[in-house]
């Protein structure tokens, strides 16, 4: 790659690709409409019907709000969402900052530890917290007489469970920085604090806001943690469970789900506002940031990250250890009997194998689909309306508890006469629903990465035939020499 390509051939290649881009855009939109929008719409319609399917307008909403309990649930849900976000984001930022901007040792190990919670169901943390801080807990005195059963336990559990999601998004934002900006700032004698406030934070803005939204939405929709450790603290997610599973009252369950969807709508409008003000941070000529050793700073970052990592490992270790104990806390002998999966509730080893198949297929298909969606939303210029639909639907699954999505799938895919009904009960529909369920966080991560990279350089790389993942990772050939102004723009605080 010695000389930049001439504008003429590049332009014709772009024209040619426009058709394909349009086709792909429509395909992703169709995927999200069929896999998400239509099933959810059926769920929303339920909230306007009675148990026999007659239209009753807003009667269910009126009934729901006729007692004091819902207002309490809504207030509690918001408190949990806000507090756990306020706790999680600075921790995740600190951790990602240590990994990307310091020279502390064991960075790979730290990164690995941060991602472990992704491999566990969120309620595992709640179970560990009960063992540690419950009425029989070893560390219960640390709570000074407060009970772990309630908001304290929920927030701690959510912080652990949602740490990796927020870490990934923030890490993506911090990982893509241009060394030249920092060198320029240094040569101008800018103070560290000023560099942090005017260069680091603005560059990570989209990542931080995305991570906050992810944390907030995951917190208000998570059901496992409040169920195990919530005590009498009611939240909307447990209200949905009570309605749908406890009383099979789908109409009321839909009413509560619509409240969560309203939260998603607000989130969507908010991201659109933020998006308009974001400028790419990585030009085609960017030089990856390499932190220089600074002893005191590196030590502090190491200690902070080590403390966080120890907490994660410690809480997980409690769960692992208790899986080998005969009957905690009365018989502390060791045993493997809890690993006799065929006796456990669920499907035994067959279920374990199915889970692995599901996970593999979801990882392969999901990554491809979500990447394509994020790429088109961020980088394509065709079909703006359709891309808006994709963006709106991409952030919606965060607001939909798995239980609600599953129920919506029954209503849609089991409808008599739906040709897609042949998927019902198959592994395919499980893969589909899982991709949709986890769509938002993945989408936000990819979007954050794409936003850091200069649009012009990306377009050229794609057009020049670099495989898409390479173009994203930024290790393809750089062709963009045409935007010297971008560099100066970055140093201006916004």
């Amino acid at each position, binding site marked *: 790659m010695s000389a930049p390509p001439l504008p003429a051939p590049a332009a014709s290649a772009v024209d040619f690709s426009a058709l394909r881009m349009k086709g792909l855009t429509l395909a992703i939109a169709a995927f999200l409409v069929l896999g998400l929008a239509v099933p959810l719409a059926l769920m929303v319609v339920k909230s306007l019907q009675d148990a026999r399917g007659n239209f009753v307008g807003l009667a269910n909403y009126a009934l729901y709000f006729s007692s004091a309990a819902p207002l309490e649930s809504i207030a509690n849900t918001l408190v949990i969402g806000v507090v756990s976000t306020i706790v999680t984001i600075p921790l995740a930022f600190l951790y990602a900052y240590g990994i990307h901007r310091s020279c502390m040792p064991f960075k790979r190990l730290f990164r690995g530890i941060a991602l472990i919670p992704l491999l566990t169901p969120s309620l595992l943390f709640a179970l560990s917290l009960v063992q540690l801080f419950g009425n029989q807990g070893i560390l219960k005195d640390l709570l000074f007489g407060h009970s772990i059963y309630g908001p304290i336990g929920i927030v701690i559990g959510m912080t652990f469970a949602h740490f990796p999601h927020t870490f990934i998004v923030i890490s993506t934002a911090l990982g893509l920085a241009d060394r030249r900006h920092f060198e320029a700032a240094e040569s101008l004698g800018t103070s560290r604090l000023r560099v942090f406030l005017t260069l680091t934070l603005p560059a990570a803005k989209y990542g931080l806001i995305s991570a906050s939204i992810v944390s907030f939405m995951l917190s208000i929709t998570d059901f496992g943690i409040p169920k195990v450790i919530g005590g009498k603290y009611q939240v909307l997610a447990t209200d949905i469970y009570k309605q749908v599973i406890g009383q099979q009252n789908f109409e009321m369950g839909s009413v509560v789900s619509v409240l969560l969807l309203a939260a998603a709508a607000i989130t969507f409008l908010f991201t659109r506002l933020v998006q308009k003000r974001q400028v790419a941070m990585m030009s085609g000529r960017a030089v990856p940031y390499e932190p220089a050793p600074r002893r005191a700073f590196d030590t502090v970052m190491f200690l902070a990250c080590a403390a966080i990592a120890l907490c994660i490992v410690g809480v997980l270790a409690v769960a692992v250890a208790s899986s080998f104990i005969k009957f905690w806390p009365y018989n502390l002998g060791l045993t493997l009997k809890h690993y006799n999966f065929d006796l456990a509730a669920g499907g035994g080893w067959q279920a374990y194998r199915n889970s692995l198949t599901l996970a593999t*297929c979801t990882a392969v*298909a999901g990554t491809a689909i979500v990447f394509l969606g994020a790429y088109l939303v961020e980088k394509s210029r065709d079909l703006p309306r359709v891309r808006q639909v994709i963006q709106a639907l991409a952030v919606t699954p965060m607001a939909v508890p798995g239980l609600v999505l599953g129920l919506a799938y*029954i209503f849609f895919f089991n409808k008599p006469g739906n040709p897609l009904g042949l998927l019902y009960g198959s592994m395919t529909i499980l893969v589909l629903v899982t991709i949709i369920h986890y769509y938002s966080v993945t989408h936000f991560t990819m979007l954050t990465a794409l936003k850091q990279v200069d649009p012009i350089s990306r377009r050229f790389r794609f057009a020049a035939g670099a495989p898409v993942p390479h173009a994203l990772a930024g290790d393809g050939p750089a062709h963009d020499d045409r935007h010297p102004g971008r560099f100066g723009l970055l140093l201006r605080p916004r």
Partner: protein
Amino acid sequence: MQAGIRRFATSGFVRSLLACLALVVSPAALAATELTVYTAYENDDLKAYKAAFEKANPDITINWVRDSTGVVTAKLIAEKENPRADVVWGLAVTSLLVLEDMDLLAPYAPKGVEKLSPKFRDPANPPKWLGNSGWICAIIFNEAEAKKKNAPKPVTWKDLANPAYKGQVVMSHPASSGTGFMYVSAWLQLYGEAEGWKFMDALHQNVARYMHSGSAPAAVAAKGEYLIGLGFDVRGSRLKEEGAPIDVIMPKDGLGWDMNAMAIIKGTKKAEAARRLMDWGVTEEANRLYGSTRAIAAIPGFAKPLAHLDKNMDERIMKQDFAWAAKNRARILAEWEKRYGSKADPTKK
């Protein structure tokens, strides 16, 4: 550009994606007759039941779909426009009554149905559902914690209102779990509505949490998180087998209970095989199997007493009007939520 797309399309990434799709789209293999049976029975029960039935009916295979009572019930109702189950075997009768009310069950009187205790039969003829076995309300009392706290042992339900147990009782949330509702409906039938609510008002002062699961209160009481869990007999017996320092108390003032029952789903395309499963489900052989892990079976005398528990449960269980409970469920739950649902930390009152 074309080259780029082509390279992308033939990359290992896309190829593995296609391989995955091929793997998951493959049609379900069809055996001679495969019955889809929805159940909330526990896993170890399922193995024995399936093996015994298929041995007697080699041309039929059971394909279980198992989940908790609430999930199975919700699934059956959500699928009502296009039912996927052929038979339900092992679901609470209180759930089956809801399905019956929606006209989702097909009536059938199997051979030998008259041997079942009348309590275990739908009074209609032909019956729409038939009972298999039952589970009974029980107090799971942690003796190790009681010793530490010097707490007395309850003998009746009303003992649970003793202020000595403040913040020490856990039970299932009646709006979340059929087990929780089983308790509430039993107390209301046992004492009458006015006195029943008065008792629950007092009990509420002692309840630490209403849990969103039927089996959790017994489990946490067995682990000493709380002194008393309101659970059921089978779970208590198993926890004691595992070494929990508990006593499983069957209160003297009356024993509420619920029933595992079976029914054919209306509109099944495998009606013949479904009927044969019903036929087998009421045999003595089946009842012996039910009775091997439950304190009461549909044919009187076929249940073995559970380890560590009282005997003669056939006689001691209260006369329970399941139809009344099903019909009044919404009203009872609304009243319950009004009294105990919101601002629910009685320990602070």
